Each structure stands twice: as structure tokens, then as C-alpha cells.
């Protein structure tokens, strides 16, 4: 290979030829500098290919450090959703109950309790068929109440907190930890509650 300005092709027919001059050094240096700058830029702002990192956050840890903590108080929104989806079919959306299906929750003495032990067992195990007295009124539901133990602790805590705050009720919220403690106590039991059994337990 020759260097300098000697042409490589024979200029036989007037078509242009090209010389063999080397690429100027400053151009290579410029390219390397720009490449370095781009690499530094990508390292600082690129988020290293994380799909959840969007500018101006520059790393996954950065995004995580701004995530809100889980809500500490009762999640009434969630409770409302669970209630509307699951409980309102029998207890009615306004908590007034439906004849032959479910007693009212509004103003119920089973709901407005100081302790939550009995109350938590109700959705976890349901009720066996039989008479039940709610706020002085006796009802008889031939089908009892279905158990909803498949709902998560958070959902049960949310829906119980919800019914304890609405329709004139005003009782303390229920936490997921309390639900979990009761679930552990119950163990593998699937037999529904009876009124006498619940009344014998502490509130």
C-alpha cells in the first residue's frame, strides 16, 4: 500500500479517482472524545436499560426512593370495592340487608363492637343456618352465610373497616394483622360459625 497522494485507480476514462491520504488525527481524536462524552452521558442519565426508569430519574433505586409507603390508615376505597363486589349482593349497597338473605349492617350491634374478634370470624367462616338477633330484631336465614375466607387479609380488613364507618356506624378500623391473627387461630377449620359459639368468644 502506498501513502501520499498517489491514485489507486488508473484515470482511464475520466471518472474520478481517490487518493490514499490517511484520516486526519484530529478527527479520530474528536470521535474518541465524543464517544467518551456519550458514554459518560449514558452512564449518568441512561438508567442502564431499566424499562421502569424514565428521565429525570437516573436509576431504579432512585425511582424506588420516591415510592409512597403503603397506606397506614384503613383503605375505605378498597373496602368499598370489595363490599360492592362481594357483600352488597346480600347485604344491599346501603347496608340495609335483604329479606331472607342477610341482616342489616347499618346500626348493627355485631358491627359496632369495641373488639373485632367476633366480627372478623364472620366473613372468614360464615354462619350456619339458624336464627340471629341483630340490634334487637330476630332474623332467620335458611341458608346461613357463605364463608369468604378466600379474600385476602387486606381485603377483609378493608371491607370491615368500611362497614364500620358507614351508614351511621362509627367504630375503629380493622387491620390486616388482626385478621391474620384470627385466621391463624381458626387454622384449617371450614365449619361455619354458630351464634352461640360466637357469643361465647370474647368480643
Amino acid at each position, binding site marked *: 500500500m502506498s501513502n501520499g497522494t498517489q491514485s489507486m485507480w488508473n484515470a482511464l476514462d475520466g471518472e474520478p479517482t481517490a487518493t490514499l491520504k490517511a484520516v486526519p488525527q484530529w478527527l479520530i481524536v474528536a470521535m474518541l472524545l465524543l464517544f467518551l462524552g*456519550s458514554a459518560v452521558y449514558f452512564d449518568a442519565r441512561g438508567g442502564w436499560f431499566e424499562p421502569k426508569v424514565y428521565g429525570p430519574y437516573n436509576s431504579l433505586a432512585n425511582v424506588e426512593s420516591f415510592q409512597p409507603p403503603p397506606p397506614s390508615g384503613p383503605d375505605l376505597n378498597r373496602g368499598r370495592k370489595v363490599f360492592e363486589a362481594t357483600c352488597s349482593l346480600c347485604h344491599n349497597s346501603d347496608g340495609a340487608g335483604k329479606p331472607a338473605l342477610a341482616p342489616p349492617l347499618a346500626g348493627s350491634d355485631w358491627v359496632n363492637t369495641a373488639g373485632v374478634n367476633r366480627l372478623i370470624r364472620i366473613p372468614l367462616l360464615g354462619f350456619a343456618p339458624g336464627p340471629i338477633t341483630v340490634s334487637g330484631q330476630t332474623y332467620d336465614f335458611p341458608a346461613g352465610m357463605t364463608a369468604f375466607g378466600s379474600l385476602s387479609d387486606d381485603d377483609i380488613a378493608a371491607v370491615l373497616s368500611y362497614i364500620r364507618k358507614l351508614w351511621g356506624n362509627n367504630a375503629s378500623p380493622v387491620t390486616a394483622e388482626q385478621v391474620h391473627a384470627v385466621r391463624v387461630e381458626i387454622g384449617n377449620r371450614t365449619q361455619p360459625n354458630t351464634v352461640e359459639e360466637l357469643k361465647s368468644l370474647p368480643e
Partner: protein
Amino acid sequence: MTAPPSNPPSAIDASCRLPLFGLFGGAAVCLALASGFGLIASLSFHKASLFADCAMLSYGRAYPAWSHLLVYGFCVPAGLGAGLWLLARLGRVEVAKPWLIAFGAKLWNLGVLVGLIGILAGDASGFEWFEMPRYAVIILLAAFLIITLCAFITHYGRSRRHEEADSPSGTEARFVTSEPTLYPSQWFVVAALFWFPWIFTTAGWLLHYFQVRGVVQVAVGWWYAGNLLNVWLPLTGLAATFYLLPKITGRPLQSQYLALFAFLTLVVFGTWTGMPAHAPLPAWMPTLSGGASLLALVPALAVVASAILTCRGSNVACLGGPLCYAKFGVVSFAVSSLLIALTACPLISRVTDFTWFNHGHATLRLYGFFVMTMTGAAYYILPRVSGIEICANRVRANFWLFVIGTLLFTLPLVAGGVTQGAKLLDPSILFLDTAKPAMMAFRMSTLGEVLIAAGSGLFLFNVLAVMAAWYRSVCRQAFANATARLETAEAQS
């Protein structure tokens, strides 16, 4: 008017005549039409209620019509035409199947027309630089593949010829390793012929036929636009530039390695540009594009260095001819690459995002670099393939109309965009107070558009004049042959 044919074109050039008339003719018509739609679109900003009752000419349809006609009506066919001629000339071989290429050119024009009608009727895709509806995509792709096939056959025909000419008789001629056989322009054209079908098919497939979900659509759309504007246009434009500069000045291209460096950095870095800095995409995508935009400065610098070294010491005055066009194209390419690299810097893109700045540098690349280079190439190529000279005054007038028009079009938009962006950053300034001051810049840019429209009209006139003169000369020749035969027949009888 045009002079009678002076030197009859060589066999290679004559073979290119039919396809190039088709490609450049259609391109010239579309360039003029595009200018018309660009003016219509700009009018909506000067008097908002002008097209209140006409859906077809409203800004939202006239602007995509402009970009469609400019890119697909002019840029692609003109690039193909110049590329085909370069492959034929540099391969020292006649172009393969000229009638098939001419058919492909007509099919391409049909696709552009179908796309235009679709856009005006409201079927635009919504993706910038890829506005055509889905039914136009197939037609355009088929036409491009037909022309590419013929181009590759032409290029393949080159290597056998060269080896046969060089090899001594009786020895194995298959591999010639002593001399490279490709001139830089040929690499650029071959790469461009390969590039476009891939990006076009990907965009057409993933945006129209099997539309991807959510924001991946814009990722694909911006990838396509970046490859089209920052790789494909430079590949075809620089192929013509690397031919015109040494050929017209009579000096050798300086140098082969610089051209190779420009080629490699262009395809490796330019293809990663395209994602704007503000994109609603994970941070790694706009950051990679920003870095690539910075690095895309390198091929621009290489081209400028090569152009300066090649033209230095040459006494050829350009006089508004194709050499001037090519030089202005190189300068515009460098400046637009610089503007794109500037937007890679987040401090600057904060100011220029969403403003007229981006429109400004895109049109600088399109008009200042590509349209200028291709027009110059057309003014160089068409006389040689047809044997018809084009009046130098008209070529010069076209040059100055385009130059002043481009400068008036793009520079006010760039400056106006910066001030608009600075005002957008200040939340205490009402939005309307940011848009209105940009109108002064916009008025100047509309004046530039008028000049460009005039230049496009002149270019169309020149191209049609060449074609008309050629047909006239063919008719005259046929008439002369017929009368000569009659006379000899009469003399014999």
C-alpha cells in the same frame, strides 16, 4: 431555449435516459407540488380561518401532504436516479433493464399519488415522516424493490466486466486482489439500496399491518425517521457529492480512507439517532440517541474535511452550476448535523423541544442538503444522458432561488424556535405569548418558502424542457431519416 444536442451521449449514459427521465421527471413534479402544499400549510398560520370550511387543505392535512411529497415524491426517486446513474458510470456498464426501472418509477409515482390522496382524505397514519396510509405502503415498497433489483443487477454486472478487462488470457480471473474496484460513491449507493427496504418494511409492518402496542409504535416511528433523515438521505446525497466534487474540479477525491471513515461512522452512529430527548420512553432510549447524535457529527466533519481538501487548489469556478449545489449541500449537511448534535445536550433540548427549531433543522437537511445536492446532480446528469444542454443562466437562477429560499426558510425558524422555547420554559408567560412572537420568524420563513417554490417551479421547467427537447430531437431525427430514405428511393426510381 435549449441548444441542439452537442455531443451524443455515451452508450452507458444513453441506457440511463429512459429510467432517469421517469425518476427525475416524477421527482421534479412532486417537488413543485410539495412546495405548493407547504405554502398552503403555512397560510394556515398567517390567517387561521382561511381553510375553516375545507378539511382537505387544513394544516393537519396539508403539512403531512408536504412532507409526504417532499420525502417520497422527490427525495427517494431523485436519490434512486442519481444512485443508478452512479452505479452505471462507475461500474462502466450499461444500466440493466431500463424499461423495468422506468416501470418501477411510474409505479412509485402511483404510490406517491395514492398516498397523497389518502392523506388529504384523512387516512394519514399520524407518524411523522411516514404519513402514508397502509394501502400506499405496498405500492411504494414494490416499486422500490423493482428498482433495487435492477440496480443490483447493474452493479453485479460491473465486477465481471472489470475482471475480464484486466485479466490476461488463460488465467483465472475470478478474484482480483491487486486493486480495489469500488469507488466510495458505490459503497454509499449499495448501502442505501439495502437500507431503505429494511427500514420501510419494518415501519410499514409494525405501524400499519401488525401494529405494535402502545409507545413501541412511536419508538419504531422515530427509529424509521432517524434512519431515513440521518442515514439514508446522507448516504445517497453524499454518493452524489463524492462524485460531483472531484469530477467537476478535476482533482482526485481526498481521500479514500476519509470517505471510508465517513461511511463507517455514518452507518454505525447515524442509525441510532431518532429518539427525541423528551420522549415518553425509558431513559435509555433517548440517551442512546443523544449520544449517537453527538457522534453523528463525526461523519459530517469527515465530509467537510474531504470536500475542502478536494476543492482546494482547484481553479474551476462553479458559476451557479452543479459544483455550487454540491458545495452548499455539504455546508448544509454539516450545519444540520451540528444542530442535531446540539439537541443531544439536555440543557439545550430543554429549550428547543417542541418548538420550530426542530422543523428548522429538518428542513435545512432536506432542502439545504438533499434537494440542493440532487438538483445539482440532476443538472449534471440529465444533459449527459440526453445530450441536451440546459441553459446555464436558468441553472444559476435556480441555485440562487434555492439558496436564499433555504436560508430564509430555515434560519428564522431555528432562531424563532430558540426564543419560543425559552419563553415556554417560563411558566409565568402565557402560552399564547410564546406562540405569537414566533410569528415574525414564521413570516420570514414563509417568504423563504415562496422562493423555494419558485425554484422548484424553475427546476420542473428545466427538467421538462430537457425532456421536451430530447423528444423533439428524436422526432427531428426520425423525420430526417424518413425523408432521406424517401429521397434515395426517389433517386433510385
